[in-house]
């Protein structure tokens, strides 16, 4: 198991942001982590990334404890979000070098990784271009490649593919399938239920709790829904917390 969480809880004063969630994520799995705004997704994810200490409960990520081994966790995970991922004022090559450096890859390893990555992405000609000048779809593919440059056990994707054209989105998901095939675990949060349908399993959070967890196919069957959108709406509309 790459993630195990047992009654993981986070309180802010009297407010229970994450309320005793339990789940496991297997190696190589594409795991969707869904919930409406305010459901507690971000708080839960921050605990799993070693950025916030739980109030109670247990969890391990890549075998490391979320209370005592947060530094090891940070070294074993990758992170990519639509909002923040690459430095726009650095070139493609500089971004790769920067992130690989942060993860303390050796110079020789960085050179080798950079060459391989540029070739895989067909971006050899753009290595000296500023990231700002790249089309959004290329940025996303580059951001994902960089997020796994240090061969993490698991990569967290925070709303990864908003806004790009459908062809680019398909290519992006093919890349994710490929990474999963290589044994990298993928943990995705998204508002878009068509993205949820790419996941092997998804969990849906409502008011700090995990209300449902299964494969998209079985969830659709259980809730007699034609799409994940329907499943999500049925569950999320029960929420008593307002997103205000």
């Amino acid at each position, binding site marked *: 198991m790459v993630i195990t969480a047992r009654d993981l809880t986070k309180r802010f004063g009297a407010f229970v942001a994450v309320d005793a969630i339990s789940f496991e994520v297997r190696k190589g799995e594409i795991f969707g982590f869904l919930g*409406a705004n305010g459901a507690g997704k971000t708080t839960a994810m921050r605990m799993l990334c070693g950025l916030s200490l739980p109030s109670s409960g247990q969890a391990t990520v890549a075998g490391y404890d979320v209370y005592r081994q947060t530094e090891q966790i940070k070294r074993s995970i990758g992170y990519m979000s639509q909002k923040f991922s690459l430095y726009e004022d650095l070139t493609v090559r500089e971004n790769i070098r920067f992130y690989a450096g942060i993860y303390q890859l050796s110079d020789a390893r960085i050179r080798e990784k950079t060459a391989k990555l540029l070739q895989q992405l067909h971006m050899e000609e753009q290595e000296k271009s500023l990231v700002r000048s790249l089309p*959004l779809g290329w940025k996303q593919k580059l951001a994902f490649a960089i997020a796994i440059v240090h061969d993490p056990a698991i990569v967290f994707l925070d709303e990864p593919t908003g806004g790009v054209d459908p062809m680019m989105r398909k290519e992006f998901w093919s890349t994710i399938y490929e990474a999963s095939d290589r044994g990298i675990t993928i943990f995705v949060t998204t508002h*878009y239920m068509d993205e949820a349908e790419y996941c092997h399993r998804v969990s849906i959070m409502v008011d700090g709790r995990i209300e449902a967890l299964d494969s998209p196919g079985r969830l659709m069957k259980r809730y007699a829904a034609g799409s994940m959108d329907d499943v*999500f709406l049925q569950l*999320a509309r029960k929420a008593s917390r307002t997103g*205000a």
Partner: protein
Amino acid sequence: MVKPVIVEELVKKYRMKRGEVKALNGISFSVEKGEVFGIIGPDGAGKTSLFRILNTLLLADQGRATVNGYDTVGEYKKIRQCIGYMPGRFSLYQDLSVRENLEFFAAIFNADIQENYLLIKDIYTQIEPFRDRRAGQLSGGMKQKLALCCALIHQPEILFLDEPTTGVDAVSRKEFWEMLHRLKERGITILVSTSYMDEAGLCDRVALLQKGNILSIDTPEGIRGRFGKAVWAVRASEMFRLLNELKGDPSVESCYPFGQYHHVVLKAPLAGETDLRGIMDRERYAEAEVRPISPTIEDCFMALMKE
């Protein structure tokens, strides 16, 4: 009767360090009164340039456009009186409260909140509990509702919404579309842009926009009806291997991942389930599943992109 929006051969170019970028490549279309008209396209398609030209905030390089019969260049002041505009980026005053933002927008349009309250009542009552909260402190869904109220407070005839549902959760997104349909029933014409293909089905007509060109304009059913080829939804236990297998097979025209399934179009018009099952049996896929489906807007968009 004059059409709410008429666009003729609009061209917009931006000069960059390394040459020119054409945001709009001579596009033409018109919107009927009372219609929900969707501009569907990814980032960089030209959606925002188009909206800014129609809202008289940007000049086109060539072509012309009218809104409510007024020319976007010569009669821009008249246009500003009769439209509501909700830009893609949240543009209200973050440090004014909900109530103050609404009062401010009513004041600059010389509109009376009481007089026009009926139009925004449904939406405003949802954010009224937070009327003294600063706009910057609201959630995405609430900000969006407030922005819509501010765009409606002067009773516009035409509403321009630039990517209103980007980054909003599924529940708020559904509620937002329900609000748009209620506004349509009140006779307001709505031009809305989105990068999410699944929202096309919620519009009366859509224009599919890609790199400044319109790929197709029709009702969502019309666009799907013109796809012209059978689409097969296929799945098995090893989805990534299956994707590469089908992409590389000589009998396959296209194969794309679509969530739980891959969507496959075959080259031969009469080929179908037996052929796909044949490939999957030969390559020993477990739990193989094949079924015919009708094409989605996304299938159509990608097929049109390739043409």
